[in-house]
């Protein structure tokens, strides 16, 4: 399966949306427009887009607190996201979730989760429902190298393989869990190797290479739809300078901007131009438009009202 030119351009556009969304999120945090924290997806854009490009709109995605990228990649609305970030009533979760709990179920984005690995077994359950419903839909679950150390990941790996669930376990290895380097946390060089002990395919790709991610995800999705079960897909990348707006994390000093050397967006841009899919001018226009969408979203979010106090007592019980 190959992507149409249009689809590739849309992926490129969404990469910029993510990048500008995250830059705005950092800026707005600096301005004191919301509290808590935010975990930028900067430098990892190609992974979310590569995976989501392999999915249908009826497929489902779950992600972590570093999940703004997955949300946009799956088609979530940046305005509703930005308002959510600022805790506004117009947010996709009415301001209740904030940065770490974005969700837009109508586009198949079953949300971010602030508990590391807390969503992995849930993703397994969503995939089980898909299997039982027989719709052919699949679930992709994003999580980090750190999350891959939590036991529930292995529990899910075992159950998903045993039950042949239509599940993509996408581990985004950005080398760090806050300050802890993968080499200090994980007993094997590639996280995809974990699959060897569980009897499912484990694949490592360059997470900054859209095409590589897309190709691997397409294979994994096909396998899942065929009923052959899950795939563990490791996307290697380099984390952006900091863990979050609050915590610096370990990639300080010279390492801080290492991600820039392999920034996935210029790389994808170059690819598309070389492929003749995109002209320089159009690329610049897309970038500008994306920035405008995010600027508008930020203005919209800033202008939006805070939730009414009655909202405290809604959405607890159905």
């Amino acid at each position, binding site marked *: 399966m190959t992507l149409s030119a249009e689809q590739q351009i849309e992926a490129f556009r969404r990469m910029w949306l993510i990048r500008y969304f995250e830059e705005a999120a950092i800026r707005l945090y600096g301005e004191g427009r919301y509290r808590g924290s935010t975990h930028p997806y900067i430098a990892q854009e190609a992974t979310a887009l590569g995976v989501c490009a392999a999915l249908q709109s009826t497929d*489902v995605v779950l992600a972590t607190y570093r999940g703004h990228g997955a949300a946009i990649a799956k088609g979530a609305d940046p305005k509703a996201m930005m308002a959510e970030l600022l805790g506004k009533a117009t*947010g*996709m*979760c*009415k*301001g*209740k*979730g904030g940065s770490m*709990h974005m*969700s*837009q*179920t109508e586009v198949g984005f*079953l*949300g971010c*989760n602030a*508990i590391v690995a*807390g*969503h*992995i*077994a*849930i*993703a*397994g*359950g*969503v*995939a*089980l*429902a*898909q299997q*039982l*419903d027989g719709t052919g839909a699949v679930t992709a679950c994003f999580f980090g190298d750190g999350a891959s150390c939590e*036991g*529930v990941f292995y*529990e*899910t790996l*075992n*159950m998903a393989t*045993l039950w042949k669930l239509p599940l993509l376990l996408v581990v985004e290895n950005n080398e760090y869990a806050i300050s802890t380097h993968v080499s200090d946390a994980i007993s094997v060089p590639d996280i995809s190797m974990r699959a060897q002990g569980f009897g499912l395919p484990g694949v490592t790709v360059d997470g900054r290479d859209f095409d590589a991610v897309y190709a691997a995800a397409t294979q994994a999705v096909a396998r899942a739809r065929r009923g052959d079960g899950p795939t563990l897909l490791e996307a290697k990348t380099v984390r952006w300078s900091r863990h979050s707006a609050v915590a610096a994390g370990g990639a300080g000093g010279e390492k801080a901007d290492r991600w820039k050397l392999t920034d996935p967006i210029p790389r994808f841009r170059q690819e598309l131009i070389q492929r003749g899919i995109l002209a320089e001018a159009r690329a610049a226009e897309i970038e500008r438009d994306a920035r405008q969408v995010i600027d508008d979203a930020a203005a919209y979010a800033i202008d939006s009202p805070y939730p009414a106090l009655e909202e405290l007592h*809604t*959405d*607890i*019980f*159905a």
Partner: protein
Amino acid sequence: MRELTYAQAINEGIREEMRHNGKIVVLGEDVGKYGGVFGVTRGLYDEFGAARVRDCPLNEAAIVGCAIGLAIAGRPAIAELEFMDFTTFAMDPITNQAPKLRFFWGGQVSVPLVVRTPIAAGLGFGTQHSQSLEAWLVHVPGLKVVMPSTAYDAKGLIKTAIRDPNPVVFAESISLYSARGEIPDEEYVIPFGKADIKRKGDDVTLVALGPIMPKALQAAEELAQQGVDVEVIDPRTVAPLDIDTIVNSVKKTGRLVVAHVAHKTGGVGAEIAQQVVERAFDSLDGPPVRVAAADVPIAASQRLEQATLPDVAGMMKACLSFRQ
């Protein structure tokens, strides 16, 4: 009317709901072919098949997590944890996920989840298999917590739990599994948040939770012979709690005893007592009294276990402590 055991009553309730709603899935350790370590899911595998009655690997966190995934994807899920002590392995899904997802996603999903798990107190299983942990769960907004004490209640409440679009922890009692009760032939459900007055009385209000109910009723009978008329209230659901029924009773009796097999300190007894004190302070003849497990780990040795757990004599003494 027929007589069923408490275990059979739960089984029948689940079975009826699974017949009504083809989406429901049961999952847990040994729940399928074997019918559950205590036989509560017996026969469901044969009737509904392996897809809907799923034997899981031994991993509580993933079982409950997976059940949440089913639930938010539109499939009501009933997960079993073999002893309530093992909720410790699933506290993230039970407390950080199930009761919060709907809220932090602004109402975009509902979570029709039932976590069934039995309390084992008093059976000699020792320190790690004897805890009644409802106090942890009532402290978590968004969770409902059910503690049936009779076969009749168990059936009506499990059906309500399964139909509830919200997460429910259904705390059964191993010591009650074989207790028999009359079950109507026709279908019925019991609403959450409605206490049941298991025995009417005017002198003392005795609130008893789940597995201690038979002993509470026994204490009340023995006290009746001594001329003390005890009203025994079964909240049935501790979240939501029907505090009105309890307060109304205390306004009549002026005296409150709360009994549970959970440890005293930090138990639900304190919560119920304080809510009553907040609402009926002037009606109280004296401070509410708690009858509960001593604040020590529960030993395997029968003699020590018995001394740790609340008993009939303890409840009687508490009910009499108000008399001058």
